């Protein structure tokens, strides 16, 4: 009980010190690795030690470990990080970790990471870890599945828990029969509308994915998209060409990178 009281009084003191951050926190005392550079729609910026968002942050706004940037629908944010730049899509949440890593807690984001000597940048979601060497890729973290689409450079994808996953690969078009190709074309057109929410198993069937091997990580190639099923199921990953909807999203987010 005593420690509890001590904790409460410490929390109280802390709250007195940090009071200013409610509504008018602008001064930074932490090591900043990133900054919020641009936003559109309602973007919330929550400091690590605060339950409340920063009211009307002045841009660029320096971000430290544990700080959150979140977007609601129709909102978008550009975060500049020591390692590169990230465009956060709508309904997404990004947490700043340190000089070499960011975590996408929810939603989708386009990462453009510059190659740095002696540094390996890491992007995370609750499910996966993406190791990066100079590249541009899009990450989506949904309840049902995670997606990583690579547009430039190279990334390696592993699960947070290190479990091996069953690795499937879409049948190359050259190996498809004419009927299969027709079916594939038809399906990829319908998939265009609901891509990132699509149930993993539907997607797997649609991609005519063939089992290749059990792997602990996947080195993704440019123009490919890796889709992982959600936690709690038997780990699986599908390697397929980048989805049209993802490509569309990448184009939209990429505009902010130029």
């Amino acid at each position, binding site marked *: 009980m005593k420690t509890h009281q001590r*904790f409460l009084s410490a929390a*109280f003191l802390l709250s007195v010190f940090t009071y200013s951050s*409610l509504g008018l926190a602008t001064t930074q005392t932490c090591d900043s690795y990133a900054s919020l550079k641009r936003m559109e729609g309602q973007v919330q910026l929550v400091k690590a030690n*605060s*339950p409340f968002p920063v009211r009307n942050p002045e841009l660029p706004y320096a971000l430290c470990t544990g700080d959150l940037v979140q977007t*609601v629908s129709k909102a978008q944010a550009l975060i500049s990080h020591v390692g590169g730049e990230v465009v956060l899509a709508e309904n997404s949440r990004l947490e700043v970790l340190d000089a070499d890593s960011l975590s996408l*807690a*929810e939603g989708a984001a386009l990462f453009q990471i510059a190659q740095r000597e002696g540094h390996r940048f890491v992007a995370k979601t609750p499910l996966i870890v993406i190791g990066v060497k100079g590249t541009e890729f899009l990450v989506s973290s949904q309840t049902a599945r995670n997606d990583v689409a690579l547009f430039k450079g190279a990334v390696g994808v592993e699960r947070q828990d290190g479990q091996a996953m069953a690795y499937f690969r879409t049948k190359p078009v050259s190996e498809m029969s004419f009927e299969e190709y027709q079916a594939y074309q038809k399906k990829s057109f319908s998939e265009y509308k609901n891509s990132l929410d699509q149930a993993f198993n539907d997607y797997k069937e649609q991609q005519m994915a063939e089992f290749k091997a059990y792997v602990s990580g996947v080195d993704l190639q440019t123009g490919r998209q890796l889709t992982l099923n959600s936690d709690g199921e038997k780990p699986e990953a599908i390697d397929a060409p980048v989805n049209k909807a993802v490509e569309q999203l990448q184009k939209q987010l990429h505009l902010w990178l130029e």
Partner: protein
Amino acid sequence: MGLFKKNGISLLKKHGFYLLGFILLLLTYQLALHPPLIIQSLASALTDDYFHWNKRKPSEKLVFIDIENTSVRAHGRWPWSRDLVAKGVAQLNTAEVIGLDILFSEPTVATHDQALSNAISRLENKVIGGVFLNGPQAETLTKDNAGYQHLLYSSLNRTENAQLIDSQRAEIPITKIREAFPLLAALNTSPDADQKIRHYPLAFWLQDAAIPNMGVQMWRLGHFVDLELNGTQALLGEQPLAVDKKTRARINYYPVGTWQRIAFTELLQPDWDPQRLAGRWVLVGVSEAGVTDMRVTPLGELPGPLIHLTFVSNLLDNSLLTDINGWELLAVLLAVFIFVIFIWQFSQPWLRLLLFFLLGLSIAGIGVAGYAFFNLWLEIFYPLVFLLLTVLVGEVWFFVMSRAETAYLRSAFSSYVAPALVDKLVKQGDELQLGGKRQQLTVLFSDLRDFTPTTELLETEELVSHLNRYFGSMIEEVHRYNGTLDKLMGDAVMALFNAPLADEDHAYHACLAAAGMMQALDAFNLPYSVDDPHYLRMGIGINTGEAVVGNIGAANRFNFTAIGDAVNTAARLESMTKEVNCNWQASKQAGEVKPCETVDIIIGEKTFAAVKDRLPCYPVIGLELKGKLQAQDVWVLDWRKMIAQGRLP
């Protein structure tokens, strides 16, 4: 068969019975997992009294600024003019956290609205305004609505797949007043099936925003920590909160009347001391009866603001309740089941019922103790229902099985034992040891002498009916003296005394039965002359000694019988009667004086020892028993003299 073991339950088919109990357990558990509304209400009604065991007082830190009866008498009916409210609100500035459990959703006189807005603004960043989700005048807020953005700003930031009560619409303060509030919070509660409030929703979905409830928002502001929601896990700063599937915490009510309440009108008095609120967390709300902010709780009606404050106080003194459900409840039910199985081992129904009653009381006691000492909430309804079901089903089963057992005893013994004895057997069922036992008993053997010629002379049908009449009167005599008919073999009768029913004076009673049989035979022979083939002659042997008694045979065909030397000797004594009688008659004709006319009953040594002082017996010296090498002393029992002495009733 094992039908006659000492313990109650082992009389029954145990495994099927236990399986039935286990099925009841799973059914009860399913009921607890998905209770229909009526069951929920019943279950809650049983545990609502727990709160009487709460002797805690709400935290000193919390104050309810109450617009109650005296305030209404002083300033007129609610709602008041907002400049009046503004004057009171202005007095709150020494408090640490201020919540307003009042909805300012309609504009009034512009200057009054402005006055309130100004008063709220002067409270700086420590005041929280209320919104009411899904209320009667709630509107759908578009995403670019400033009110929605204000709510979004006030909402929880660290949620992932949070399972919250969903709402699409909200009733929010008018813009002028809303803008004065740094933060907003929900003012909603969530009643149970019976409309009573026992749970406190931590937050609600309003479109994309997780709007914290007033109590949670006060904590966030007061302690500057966020509430993290992940699925149905809730973490308030470092402190995990026990919540249900809708992220509702179970609140622990304090005794009514223990709250620090300050009438709103006191704020407006000239002698108001602002230091009374220094460092406090206050919630301003209405308890005046005319305003519908009274909520039904297990303690009766409580003003809505006190429900928010109860939650906050529970957080402050760490007394939020944790439900015992899921596997924990299953473990409780299993524990009850183990006790029930234990109680089933007792055969006396009154003892079982007493123990079941005590078990029920213990469940209730454990529920209260869990609440009072560990902040655990056990819906004792489910273990009690399970107990009741198992007791009912169990006792019905016991009843049916004991009926079946009675019927069995009757059918199994009524042909061998006197009907009056069968009743006794049934009553004493538990004390009967029919499984096999070595014991002292007296065996009576009777056989007809020279019966083969009779069988040749009589027609078959007449022979059978003649024999049946004869057996009828013999068996009647056996039963009269508490003997058990063991079996009929041809024309012979074997009867046991002292088994299966205990009889201390079994030797004597066997002798009486033998004399009775001789007397009955005399009466049976009365219509016939000595030369008539219908005329029967009988010899009886009686022996007392140790034998093994029990149900002997195969599963479907068995008899209660005795085996052992004592039985064999009795049979041999009987077969001696004819020869001894011949010698006896020869001696008489040779002029020897014999104490009785004929030799019809011969008794063994131990039987003699038991009856020698009471019955007329004469020794037959040096008789050699068939099949037994050693000579044995036997005695003739003079049944005619016994009759003359009036030994037979």
